[in-house]
């Protein structure tokens, strides 16, 4: 069995992550920040340590600026719905996942102006096009760091510089890159960073967050939900400080214990090694696919400018048929279709059928890539 669906959820899970989940449930299991007893404090410490590890990974000065959410979708919704007001203009790209596009389309119905900047067919957003789209009422540039369909990386620090020069915020969806590619909130000029724990951070599902830097006016950013925080309990109004303003209800402590272990594991592997290893696998996959007759590969076709996610099609076959053959006959798990991103498929001209997507991860090997290439070759041969 070959698992090539890491762009959706990474697998396998590092053993230390599984141990952390079991250890939390066995030895602690209490509610963080709700009581003063030792187990409650232990639980709160686990959450805080994960906050610190995220701060270290993304170069955040204060761990309390990290808001934990269920996933990147919730984080993006918090940033957009919480910050944007009627009459505002938002700039996004034509390569966004629906986690970004759907809240934006919803906001559009409430008198928010949305400008979708067209990317090139390989998925790249031109910085000059972003600059040209900025208007006097633009408050935010909201884009992904890398496409979930073709892996194309955007030039964050340059786009962030444009945002700063025009006094607008940069919201980045780092679902596809957090943990797999170095991200620095400061040097990449990011104001709001949305991440998820279950992809290239190798943590459990149900973990993610939004990082809010000092440029964001938190008096303006409304919470998606309010409720118990364990702080200021004498008041019936929501606390206004970070992170409690945006974190109501008991968090996913067991998941965050796992995410903390995953972050420790990533720091042990070293993100540079993860990136260079995945780059090698990706380059091998792209060049191998390009050599197969009847196969078309999408994106920038250059591993150095993308993540380990590669999309392709086989002439004369629907992606769904290929996906079924890969799974049932050859034991290769991948994702086919539109990948929750109709905008991207329109941009790369594969709408409405979509593509076959191989999402590689750190646990894949060159020999698995070779086996998958043989499998694709075999399927493509039958057609021709």
């Amino acid at each position, binding site marked *: 069995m070959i698992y090539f669906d890491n762009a959706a959820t990474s697998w396998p899970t590092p053993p230390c992550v599984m141990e952390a989940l079991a250890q939390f449930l066995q030895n602690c299991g209490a509610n963080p*920040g709700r009581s003063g007893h030792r187990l409650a404090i232990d639980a709160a410490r686990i959450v805080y340590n994960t906050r610190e590890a995220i701060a270290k990974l993304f170069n955040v000065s204060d761990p309390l600026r990290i808001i934990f959410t269920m996933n990147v979708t919730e984080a993006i919704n918090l940033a957009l719905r919480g910050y944007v007001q009627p009459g505002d203009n938002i700039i996004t790209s034509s390569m966004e996942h629906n986690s970004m596009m759907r809240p934006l389309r919803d906001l559009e119905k409430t008198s928010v102006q949305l400008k979708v900047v067209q990317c090139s067919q390989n998925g790249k957003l031109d910085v000059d096009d972003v600059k040209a789209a900025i208007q006097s009422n633009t408050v935010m540039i909201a884009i992904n760091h890398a496409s979930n369909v073709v892996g194309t990386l955007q030039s964050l620090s340059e786009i962030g510089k444009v945002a700063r020069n025009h006094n607008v915020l940069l919201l980045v969806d780092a679902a596809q890159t957090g943990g797999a590619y170095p991200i620095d909130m400061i040097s990449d000029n990011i104001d709001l960073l949305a991440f998820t724990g279950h992809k290239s951070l190798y943590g459990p599902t149900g973990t993610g967050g939004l990082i809010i830097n000092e440029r964001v006016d938190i008096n303006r950013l409304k919470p998606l939900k309010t409720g118990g925080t364990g*702080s200021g309990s004498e008041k019936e109004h929501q606390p206004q400080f970070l992170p409690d303003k945006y974190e109501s209800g008991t968090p996913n402590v067991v998941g965050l214990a796992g995410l903390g272990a995953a972050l420790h594991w990533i720091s042990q592997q070293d993100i540079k090694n993860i990136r260079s290893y995945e780059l090698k696998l990706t380059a091998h996959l792209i060049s191998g696919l390009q050599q197969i007759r009847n196969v078309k590969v999408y994106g920038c076709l250059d591993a150095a400018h993308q993540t380990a996610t590669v999309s392709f099609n086989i002439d004369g076959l629907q992606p769904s048929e290929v996906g079924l053959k890969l799974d049932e006959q050859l034991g290769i798990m991948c994702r086919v279709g539109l990948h929750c991103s109709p905008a991207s498929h329109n941009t790369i001209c594969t709408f409405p059928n979509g593509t076959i997507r191989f999402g590689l991860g750190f646990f894949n090997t060159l020999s698995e890539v070779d086996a998958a290439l043989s499998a694709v070759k075999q399927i493509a041969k039958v057609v021709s």
Partner: protein
Amino acid sequence: MTNIQYAAILVPSTSHALKVEKILKEAAVTCKLIPVPRQLSSDCGVCVRINNSDAHAVKTIIDSKNVTYDGIFQIEK
């Protein structure tokens, strides 16, 4: 004669208490998270207990680290 037992750093939340705890541990200051004494607040959270003799030094340390706290209070028996 007053009978000061310890000093307590009152903070907005448990996350803040943990942040203060990390800072003090790095500075080798003895501290412990305890439930907020009723005489300080009706909040259900925790505060950071320190030795009263460390209170001055602790104030200097946490003020330099840009951490929000509500105050350092002396707790009597």
